[in-house]
């Protein structure tokens, strides 16, 4: 049957283009995920391995080796020296780090200083200019920082140690800059071992001793191990440098493994969607080949032979597509890394790594997925009666009997899942809700044949109105309900997930904003702690800030301290004099700038924050103030100016400040600019401007970034599904060649035929997107509810604009998907079409 399968593929090659594309993209996603993982490891290995570049062995402390040691022990200079004397050891140096600050005439830099010795291979460093440091007041420094600081060989700089003790030191050489991401924040300096141990003082210890040996490494390893055993240092491990790098990478990549898992989930989604496209393609292709297959049966082909011929086709397609996909992924990643190298020279340690497993697994998964997905239609083909070849082919409408088993199973899953989901949402239990989603979504998908075709038919009818060609399109869209369901479901999966995270993200943003507003009742507060502005100046600056774009109101406050009455302090469980920070405000203006009216003091009141103070009043001096309580976070207790005056405080330290309210429609990304602008106006460093708006913008930026990444990942699934729409449509068009030609003969214009096919695509794509959106909104709201309800009051928010964009994109893409099949259909002259069997 192989030649039958191969010649089928050859004959119907065009029909398989789309499915090959879909499988290739799905496989590429998986391969890229695995390659990202292995490349991250290789990159880390490149950079972490730098310290051990010339080494054979590494000795380090592993507390796990000795039950009595709980902390990592470090090595002394003496131990390093001892090891150098061991037989078989040619070089040994300790990896030790001391930190300090280096000053040039106009700036200071953090430096990390390592001991280096020209005899000992410079401690893993590579000298590029000058010479190694020898005496106590010499040092080398890394090239790129030297450039930044404007230092060259021969310069003398000031160096402070961690205790702040200063010395002058001469730069005698430059070394190559490090690519280790862990150390790149520091300028890397090297001193002679002796100078270093002086500089580091008590901290002059090494984490690792790096050893180069000659001859048999095993013997050297034994030698070093014996040395430490003699010293009763049971926690010391001696391993090869390669092994050490691998261990370090494994330790560091706990985080990237999670990334891989997350990426794998998205790859899985893309593959499920691809599987649906494959099922659909093979169903259609087999339906079109009914007569041919039945003829084979008449001519003596056994059922199993028919099935294996179909599976063989799937296998060939799976192999071709998966290999293309993996090559695509490798090429893409190699391109990205090359781009990175070209654009960011300091990332030169980024490396591409493809493991054999990373290549083979995606290919096997791609092939298996294709063959398994094709096995469903293949089974149907097998059941074909030989007589089907003789039956006239009626393509009016195909009744697909939805598998009753599938419906029951789907219904159970959906019911169970929805129950869990709602339970999780009500109880605020994300894990239960997640499980509910995991069960209900596949359940709902299994039930898709119950609601997708009827939705398409209903919406199609409403949309068609009086137009005949649109009416025909609507009828065609549901002509084969099974096919429509599978095509739409593939798209529905992606759209549901995309809209779910959009709604979830938006709701999370809104809810976080609200809880931030409750905790931080002011958008921004600028305080002049250092007395750079007096009250009059603050008022003037407040006026200025008021004119800034995006600022809706400002007011000033004066911060002052007052001593609480001793009894009150005692009541609060505090002894000694209790100082209370007061914010004196003009209540009227204050109420216009804060987000929570609860914190606005009335005359005679003081607002106390976050204190569990059960009494209705407190005393300051001889004045009794009514307490107004709030849960908001404030830097002081608001009190009305007039009330403050009546307290008659003396000698109180006072400084002014400005409260800024920001327009509600200022985008999160603009907040930083606004903060900078206000910082410029007031001369207060932007890091000293605090308030809820900064928090809000941080939260929403984090959520936005997450949303963008997840949407981009899901876009792959959506893309594959759209290829599926194009595929189904073009296959259906092939199947309806005669019918379309008849319509052309009867007076359907080319344009009308094209728009008829476009309508069909838009109906399937649009309705799938619409249903996906409805599901996604429901899942998003329930998911957000279960994840966030613990935080307090939920604020439901639906990003209509984004959802409409998703719908619009689906519709436009469906339109595009109809172009090719439409062109081909319109090109055919009516006679040619009518002549085809």
């Amino acid at each position, binding site marked *: 049957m192989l030649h039958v399968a191969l010649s089928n593929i050859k004959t119907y090659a065009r029909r398989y283009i789309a499915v090959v594309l879909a499988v290739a993209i799905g496989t590429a996603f998986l391969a890229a995920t695995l390659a990202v993982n292995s490349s991250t490891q290789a990159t880390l290995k490149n950079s972490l391995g730098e310290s051990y570049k010339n080494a054979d062995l590494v000795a380090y402390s592993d507390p796990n080796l000795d039950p009595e040691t709980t902390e990592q022990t470090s090595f002394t200079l003496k131990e390093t020296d001892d090891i150098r004397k061991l037989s078989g050891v040619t070089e040994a140096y300790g990896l030790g780090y001391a930190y300090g600050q280096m000053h040039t005439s106009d700036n200071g830099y953090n430096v990390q200083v390592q001991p280096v010795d020209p005899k000992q291979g410079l401690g893993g460093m590579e000298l590029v200019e000058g010479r190694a440091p020898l005496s106590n007041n010499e040092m080398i420094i890394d090239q790129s920082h030297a450039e930044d600081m404007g230092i060259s060989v021969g310069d003398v700089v000031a160096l402070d140690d961690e205790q702040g003790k200063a010395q002058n030191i001469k730069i005698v050489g430059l070394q190559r800059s490090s690519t280790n991401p862990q150390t790149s924040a520091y300028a890397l300096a090297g001193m002679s071992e002796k100078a270093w141990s002086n500089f580091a003082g008590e901290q002059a210890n090494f984490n690792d001793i790096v050893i180069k040996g000659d001859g048999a490494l095993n013997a050297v390893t034994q030698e070093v191990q014996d040395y430490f055993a003699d010293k009763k240092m049971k926690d010391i491990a001696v391993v090869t440098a390669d092994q050490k790098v691998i261990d370090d990478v494994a330790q560091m990549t706990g985080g990237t493994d999670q990334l891989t898992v997350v990426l794998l989930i998205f790859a899985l989604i893309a593959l499920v969607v691809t599987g649906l496209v494959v099922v659909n393609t093979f169903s259609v292709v087999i339906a079109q080949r009914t007569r041919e297959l039945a003829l084979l049966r008449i001519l003596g082909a056994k059922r199993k032979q028919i099935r294996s011929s179909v599976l063989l086709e799937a296998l060939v397609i799976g192999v071709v597509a998966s290999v293309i996909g993996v090559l695509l992924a490798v090429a893409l990643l190699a391109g990205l890394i090359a781009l990175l190298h070209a654009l960011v020279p300091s990332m030169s340690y980024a490396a591409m790594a493809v493991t054999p497993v990373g290549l083979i697994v995606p290919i096997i998964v791609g092939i298996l997925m294709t063959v398994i997905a094709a096995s469903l239609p293949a089974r149907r083909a097998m059941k074909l009666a030989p007589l089907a070849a003789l039956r006239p082919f009626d393509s*009016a409408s195909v009744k697909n009997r939805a598998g009753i088993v599938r419906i029951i199973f789907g219904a159970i899953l959906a019911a169970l899942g929805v129950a869990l989901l709602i339970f999780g949402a009500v109880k605020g239990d994300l894990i239960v809700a997640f499980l509910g989603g995991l069960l209900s979504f596949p359940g709902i998908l299994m039930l898709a044949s119950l609601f997708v075709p009827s939705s398409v038919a209903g919406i199609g009818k409403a949309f068609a109105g009086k137009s005949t060609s649109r009416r025909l399109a609507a009828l065609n869209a549901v002509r084969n309900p099974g096919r429509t369901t599978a095509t739409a479901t593939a798209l529905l999966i992606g759209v549901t997930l995309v809209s779910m995270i959009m709604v979830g993200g938006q709701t999370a943003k809104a809810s976080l904003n609200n809880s931030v507003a409750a905790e931080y009742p002011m958008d921004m507060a600028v305080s002049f702690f250092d007395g750079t502005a007096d009250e009059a100046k603050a008022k003037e600056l407040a006026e200025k800030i008021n004119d800034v774009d995006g600022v809706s109101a400002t007011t000033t406050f004066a911060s002052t301290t007052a001593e609480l009455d001793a009894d009150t302090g005692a009541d609060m469980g505090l002894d000694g004099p209790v100082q209370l920070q007061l914010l004196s405000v003009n209540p009227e203006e204050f109420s216009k700038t804060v987000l929570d009216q609860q914190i606005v003091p009335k005359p005679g009141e003081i607002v106390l924050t976050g204190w569990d103070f059960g009494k209705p009043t407190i005393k300051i001096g001889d004045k009794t103030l009514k307490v107004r309580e709030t849960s908001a976070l404030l830097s002081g207790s608001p009190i009305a100016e007039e009330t403050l005056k009546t307290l008659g405080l003396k000698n109180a330290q006072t400084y002014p400040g400005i409260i800024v309210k920001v327009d509600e429609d200022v985008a999160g990304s603009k907040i930083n600019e606004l903060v900078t602008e206000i910082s410029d106006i007031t001369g207060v460093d932007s890091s000293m401007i605090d308030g809820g708006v900064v928090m809000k913008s941080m939260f929403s930026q984090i959520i936005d970034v997450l949303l963008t990444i997840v949407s981009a990942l899901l876009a792959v699934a959506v893309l594959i599904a759209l290829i599926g729409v194009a595929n189904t449509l073009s296959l259906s068009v092939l199947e309806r060649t005669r019918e379309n030609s008849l319509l052309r003969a*009867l007076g359907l214009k080319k344009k009308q035929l094209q728009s008829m096919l476009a309508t069909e695509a838009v109906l399937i794509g649009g309705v799938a997107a619409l249903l996906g959106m409805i599901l996604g909104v429901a899942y998003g709201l329930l998911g957000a509810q279960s994840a966030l309800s613990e935080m307090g009051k939920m604020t439901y928010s639906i990003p209509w604009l984004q959802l409409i964009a998703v719908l619009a994109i689906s519709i436009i893409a469906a339109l595009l998907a109809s172009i090719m099949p439409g062109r081909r259909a319109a090109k055919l*002259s009516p*006679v040619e079409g009518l002549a085809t069997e």
Partner: protein
Amino acid sequence: MPFWLGTLYSFSMTSETLPKIDYAVATRGLTKTYGHDSTRVEALRSVDVAFARSKFTAIMGPSGSGKSTLMHCLAGLDSADGGEIIIGGKNLLSLNDDQLTEMRREQIGFVFQSFNLVPTINAQENILLPLSLAGKKHDEAWFDTVIKALGLRDRLNHKPHELSGGQQQRVAVARALLTRPEVVFGDEPTGNLDSRTGAEVLSLMRSSTREMGQTIIMVTHDPVAASYADTVLLMKDGSIVGTIEEPTVATVSEALASLAE
């Protein structure tokens, strides 16, 4: 024999001689070739022919003589290489695709051998299809007349697959008649029917020329079917080579036999 058929026979028809009689369809110098070089086939060799209005004409000839090609060109389904085809005062060869399409839905009717109906819609919708594609209303009285004449009254709500072969062809005839086109083309319209049902459909076609004044041109290879026509045109090697007026099964069979020699 009307004089125009004589001129036809001698291939010397000119437009000056035409206007005296009312023609629904006329061609001049119609040529069509397929392929090139070694595969070149001259399917139509400068065909001059005219079809009288309100007549039922059958085109016959051996297989490969160019009957289907002629009909497809006349019906605007395929493009000829040269010459003229005049229907309703317009030369089909000078029309673009959209104009040709409009021509087909308004001036030309079709009855194909099989696959005549759009399977997703019912009989009535199929009958009304050319009009609804043009966005036009149908004439209720005329619709009733046609339906009644074809005996389709109680089949209107059926989908094509619920109709028998004969009923399907009758629906196709009804659809062709409903627009009152200049001409209805039939391509072996009874080829897939048993003889009794075929006879029924042919009588209906004939009576539509007699009673409704419809012009019909039909391609057939069946002498029995041809005997329902008013005139039979004989084709061979891409040319019209003869006519038979008031044909009978015997005269048609005889003429065909002599063509085959």
